[in-house]
């Protein structure tokens, strides 16, 4: 669809021009809320990390420089949580990407019932994260759960420290599959079919065709969606909140859960904001990779 549109209007790129005064009138209604409720709070949040802001305190908040970060550097629990967060984000993103790639390749084949499969594959996307969490609690339930019944055990998957993190990772993979699959399907629509057929005629096997024809065409989208899903996963909250609430014994306490408790249970706004800043630093590095990949994709 997009390539057709591009062909149909050669030179229909937006002109490089300052939008006129009318354009400002069109932009302002969205720009003001963005500045007040999104850009502003983000900057405010970064500033809070350098203060001793606490909830419900009468004394005025003071600048304390890097004190929060110094405390954070020695906070063993936080770094433990950070490590779990990275394990979770990698553990979800990588298998999710590989599984979604497989599913997208299948859905791109001319199989019967493809329409039905496409519709069903999107189901997890439509569900509220909280319901996803509740649903998997029922699956993992020790006595009347689906999984225990299928395997013939009454293991408490979410309560056992050794299985809790793998168990929530499976849920994370499940919950994000549709988004990644849909993005990759979009990429697959760009794969030149003639090239595929030519390679097949020349005797290239399925794996070679994938590597030399399919992968180069979907690489930019693959890079973008995997980077994005890594970032989403690192910021994930609701799923694990309802599945384990960070337990057992902090084995699934993701950084977001940790920061949430710090801010809204213990009221340490400044300290929690500092945690957010550390997360931002990590995320920015990843975003840089994401943008570089994206720009490289544009150059072609």
């Amino acid at each position, binding site marked *: 669809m997009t390539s057709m549109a591009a062909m149909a209007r050669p030179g229909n790129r937006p002109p490089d021009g300052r939008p006129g005064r009318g354009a400002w009138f069109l932009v302002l209604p969205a720009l003001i809320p963005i500045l007040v409720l999104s850009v502003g709070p983000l900057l405010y949040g970064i500033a809070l990390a350098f203060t001793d802001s606490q909830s419900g305190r009468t004394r005025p908040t003071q600048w304390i420089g890097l004190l929060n970060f110094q405390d954070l550097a020695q906070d063993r629990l936080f770094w433990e949580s950070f490590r779990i967060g990275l394990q979770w984000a990698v553990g979800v993103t990588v298998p999710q990407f590989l599984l979604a790639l497989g599913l997208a390749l299948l859905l791109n084949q001319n199989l019967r019932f493809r329409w039905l499969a496409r519709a069903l594959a999107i189901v997890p996307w439509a569900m509220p994260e909280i319901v996803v969490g*509740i649903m998997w609690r029922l699956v993992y339930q020790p006595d009347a759960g689906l999984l225990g019944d299928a395997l013939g055990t009454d293991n408490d998957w979410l309560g056992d420290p050794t299985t809790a993190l793998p168990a929530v990772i499976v849920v994370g993979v499940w919950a994000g599959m549709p988004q990644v699959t849909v993005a990759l399907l979009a990429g697959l629509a760009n794969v030149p079919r003639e090239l595929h057929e030519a390679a097949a005629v020349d005797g290239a096997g399925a794996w070679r065709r994938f590597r030399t024809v399919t992968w180069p065409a979907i690489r930019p989208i693959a890079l973008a969606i995997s980077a994005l899903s890594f970032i989403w996963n690192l910021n994930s909250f609701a799923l694990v909140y309802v599945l384990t609430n960070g337990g057992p014994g902090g084995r699934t306490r993701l950084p977001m859960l940790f920061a949430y408790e710090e801010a809204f249970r213990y009221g340490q706004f400044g300290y929690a904001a500092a945690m957010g800043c550390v997360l931002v630093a990590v995320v920015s590095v990843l975003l840089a990779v994401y943008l570089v990949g994206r720009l490289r994709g544009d150059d072609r």
Partner: protein
Amino acid sequence: MKRTGTMGTRRTARAGQYLALLCYLAFLVLPFLWLMSTAFKPPRELATLDPRWIPDHPTLDNFRQAFDEQPLLQAAANSLIAAVCAAVIAVALATPMAYVMARHRSPLSRAATGWVVVSQAFPLVLVIIPLFLILKNLRLIDSLAGLVAVYVVWALPFALWMLTGYVRAVPRELEEAAAVDGAGKARILVSVTAPLLAPGIVATALFAFITSWNEFFFALVLLKSPEKQTMPVILTHFIGAEGVADLGPLAAAALLATIPSLVLFAVLQRRITGGVLAGAVKH
């Protein structure tokens, strides 16, 4: 040029593909079917060690009990108000801006595109604490109005992303032709562009509705009184302090909370994926 594979191996490959697809669908759909099954099971069948897919004695008691235990109707009404307001306002604000972003290449458009990307990477903690403090000063904590304001800004990046794609799909030539015929700028927007954009606007609004209906974190932090809470927050109240839950009513309520999103997603499926593509694939 020898053909790789005989008919036999080709048929095996096809069978393998169907089998793989079946495994995928089992993974993606079975947990949901289990939720449905649990919602209709009487307590005795929930406690059994040998659970069945189809309840022997299906019952609606779980639903009745769910409504008795928690203010589900009130929560559904709150969710509905918040999601409808957020969707309508977000789209009303985003459409004009998306139009400018699609039609003009200016530093502002580039900055806005950058913000759309950056906003995806916000750690929510860093945004929620300042928002909490700001809304507290405005006395909008524990009010749906405050939640709606947050949801609007939350939905804006994706709305801009989708709408910019839809605007690009409206041929510029149509607007130019109308201009040649002597129509003014405002007239063109209202009678040429808007009708062509309408399906995209509706799709974006419904998507924003689903996002807001499903949202949990902001509602958890910003709403305190039980009578103001939204559906996802009320659902967590079915789970007790020790993590013990009455499974039947929990499943019933969770199922009810999913129905609106699921129905809209089914209706929208093609449009949503199309909209994502329109924004994601560069022109």
